C-alpha cells in the first residue's frame, strides 16, 4: 500500500560500456499493479534489482511514499521479491525457505508456522513443505520462490517472471491467484513477464521497455489498442500485428489505402480522417490478426469494414481459432479465422477487414500517427 516513484533511474554496470537503464521515469500509485514487459536483456531484472536495492543505481532516485530510499539497504526497504532464477536456499527445506525472512525479522514461531501453511495452501505446495528445493521440479520451485515473497507483508512486491516455468494449466491458475491476492491485499506490485496474456490480464498498467528506455506506459487496453510506436505495436499481441507499407489516398468516399494481394487483386481499405495531412505519403498500416476475419453479419454495416478475396498461404488451427497467413503488398499478414469454418491453405477465402482499430505509423520516426 505504498506509492512508488522511479525518477530518472539510470544504471551502468561496473565494467560495462553501455548504460543498461537510460533514465526510467514511472510513477506507480499506491496499490497499483504494474507489469513490465520488454525483450530479453532490455533491463527488466536490472530495474527490479534496483528498486529492491540489490543494485546501486548510478543516477536518479527511488521514492517510496515521498521518501527517497535510493541509499537504503535492501533489508530496510521492506520490499519482497520473487527472483527470475528462484534463488531458493538449497540447504533449507521448503518450509525453512519460506520462514527464513520471517525468522530474521523476529516473528514468533507459532505465527511463522501458520503463515507458512497459509501460503503453502495458497500455492498448492503443502505436501512439499519438508522437501529440499533440489528435489522439486522447476514449477514447484517457482511456487516456493513465490511463497517466500508472499509470506511477508511488505510495502511493495516485486515479481520477476514468477510463472515462466509452470505448465499452461497451472499458470492460468496461479495467474488467477495472484489477481485475487492483489485484489485482497491491494499491495503495490511490479511484475515482470514475457507472457502476453499475463501482462494484459494482470496489470493495471503496463510499462514497455526496450534497450533500457521506457517505450510506453499505459493501461493494457491503451498499450494494445494505441501503441506509441512500431516497437510497442509489434511487441504486444501474439501473433503480432502485421505492418504493411501503404500510401494514403483520397477518393470520394473519404481517405483510403490500397493493398494488393498475391494474385495482383487490389483491395481499397477505408482510412480514418486524421490521416488527412498524410495524403499522397507513405505510411505503415498496422493491422492485428483479429482485425482480419471471416465475414460477420454484425459488423458488416460499419463504414470502416470492407471485404475482399485472398489466397490463404498457410493455415494453423490453434484450437479455438485458425490462424491464417495471406500476402498483402508482399508481406505475410496474419489473420484470425473461426475454427468452425475451416479454410485449407491454397484456397481462396472471403475476408473481412475491420479498420476501426487499425493503427498507422510514420515510417520515418516509427511513431504512431495520432488522431
Amino acid at each position, binding site marked *: 500500500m505504498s506509492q512508488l516513484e522511479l525518477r530518472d533511474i539510470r544504471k551502468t554496470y561496473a*565494467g560495462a560500456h553501455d548504460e543498461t537503464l537510460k533514465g526510467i521515469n514511472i510513477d506507480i500509485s499506491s496499490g497499483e499493479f504494474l507489469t513490465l514487459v520488454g525483450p530479453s536483456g532490455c533491463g527488466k531484472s536490472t530495474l527490479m534489482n534496483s528498486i529492491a536495492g540489490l543494485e546501486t543505481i548510478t543516477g536518479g532516485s527511488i521514492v517510496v511514499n515521498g521518501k527517497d530510499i535510493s*541509499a*537504503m*539497504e535492501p533489508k*530496510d526497504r521492506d520490499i519482497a521479491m520473487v527472483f527470475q532464477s528462484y534463488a531458493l536456499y538449497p540447504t533449507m527445506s521448503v518450509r525453512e525457505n519460506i520462514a527464513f525472512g520471517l525468522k530474521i525479522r523476529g516473528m514468533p514461531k507459532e505465527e511463522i508456522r501458520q503463515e507458512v501453511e497459509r501460503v503453502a495452501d495458497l500455492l498448492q505446495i503443502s505436501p512439499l513443505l519438508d522437501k529440499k528445493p533440489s528435489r522439486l521440479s522447476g514449477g514447484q520451485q517457482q511456487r516456493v520462490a513465490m511463497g517466500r515473497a508472499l509470506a511477508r507483508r511488505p510495502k511493495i512486491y516485486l515479481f520477476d517472471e514468477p510463472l515462466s516455468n509452470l505448465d499452461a494449466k497451472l499458470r492460468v491458475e496461479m495467474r488467477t491467484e495472484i489477481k485475487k491476492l492483489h485484489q485482497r491485499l491491494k499491495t503495490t506490485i511490479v511484475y515482470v513477464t514475457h507472457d502476453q496474456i499475463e501482462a494484459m490480464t494482470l496489470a493495471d498498467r503496463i510499462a514497455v521497455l526496450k534497450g533500457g528506455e521506457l517505450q510506453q506506459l499505459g493501461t493494457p487496453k491503451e498499450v494494445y489498442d494505441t501503441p506509441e510506436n512500431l516497437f510497442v505495436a509489434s511487441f504486444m499481441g501474439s501473433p503480432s500485428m502485421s505492418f504493411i507499407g501503404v500510401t494514403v489516398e483520397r477518393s470520394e468516399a473519404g481517405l483510403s489505402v490500397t493493398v494488393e494481394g498475391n494474385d495482383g487483386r487490389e483491395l481499397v481499405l477505408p482510412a480514418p480522417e486524421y490521416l488527412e495531412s498524410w495524403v499522397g505519403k507513405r505510411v505503415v498500416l498496422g493491422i492485428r490478426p483479429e482485425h482480419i476475419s471471416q465475414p460477420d453479419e454484425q459488423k458488416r454495416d460499419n463504414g470502416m469494414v470492407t471485404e475482399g478475396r485472398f489466397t490463404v498461404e498457410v493455415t494453423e488451427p490453434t484450437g479455438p481459432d485458425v490462424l491464417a497467413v495471406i500476402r498483402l503488398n508482399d508481406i505475410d499478414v496474419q489473420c484470425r479465422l473461426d475454427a468452425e469454418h475451416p479454410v485449407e491453405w491454397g484456397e481462396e477465402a472471403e475476408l473481412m477487414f475491420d479498420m476501426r482499430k487499425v493503427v498507422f505509423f510514420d515510417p520515418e520516426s516509427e511513431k504512431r500517427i495520432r488522431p
Partner: protein
Amino acid sequence: MEHIQRRPAEVARASSDLMDGLQRWLPKLVVAPTFILVGIGIYGYMLWTGVLSFTNSSFLPSYDFVGLDQYAKLLESERWLVASWNLAIFGGLFIGICLLFGVVLATFLDQRIRQEGAIRTIYLYPMALSMIVTGTVWRWILNPSLGLEKLMHDWGWTSFSFDWLVESDFAIYTIVMAAVWQASGFVMALFLAGLRGVDSSIIRAARVDGASLPVIYWKILLPSLRPVFFSSVMVLAHIAIKSFDLVMAMTSGGPGYSTDLPAVFMYAHTFTRGQMGLGSASAMLMLGAILALLVPYLYSELREKRHD
C-alpha cells in the same frame, strides 16, 4: 514548525547511515587481516628482497648499494644458467607430462570403470606424501646399485641399465619422474572432476552429430576443460617452484650442480655461501619469470568472468 518535524527523521537517517556504513565496510573489514598479513608477508618481503638484490649483502643483510652488480654476476654465473635451464626443462616436462597423464588417466577413468574409487585413491595418494619422502624413496628406487637396476639384474635381466640418477646429463629427468609420480594423480583428479562437470547433453549432441568417442573427447570435452587446464597449470607451477625439497632429497642438486634449480641456487647462496645479495637477485629474477607466466593467466581469468 518545519524543522521541528524534520528532526526525528534526520536522527533516524543518521543512525541508519551509521549502520549502513558499517554494513558497507564489513566486507572490507573481513578481508583486511588477510591482506595486511599477505601484504607484509609476501609483498613487503618481496620488496625487501628486491632492495637487497641491489646491495652487496653477504652474510646477513646490509645496505651498501651496488646497483645491478649482483644481476650482472648472476648472468655470468654458469651455475645460474644451468639452474635456469633446468627449471625450464623440469617445469616444462613436469607440467607437460603431468597434464598428459592427468588427461589420459582421467579420460580412461571416466569410462565407467569398476572400482573407480579405489583406483582414484591409488593415483591420488602420492600427493599426500611430503616431497622429502618422495625424494628419498625415488632416490632409492633409481639408485643403480640398490634399486630398479639391481631388481632387474636379480630377476635375470642383466643387460638392464638405468643410471640416469647418476648421469649429470640425465639426472634432471629423474627428478621429473619423481615429481610426475607425485603430482599427476592430483591433476587426474582435477580433470576427472572437470569431465564430470561437463553438461552431458553436449556429449549427446556430439553423438547425434555423428562423432565417435575419441572425437568427442578430443574436439568437445577437452577444449571445454580449458579452465581446468589453467587450474592445473597453476597448481603444477606452484609445485614446480616449490620442488626444492624434492631436489634436495633426491640429488641435492647433483651430480655436480646438474640438477640445480633456481630455488636451490638461491638457497645455497643466501644461506650457505653468505651471498645474500646474489641470492636476492636470483629470487627477483625467479619472481619476474613467474609474474610473466601468471599475469596472462589472471588476465584471461578475469576477462572471461566478465563475459559470463
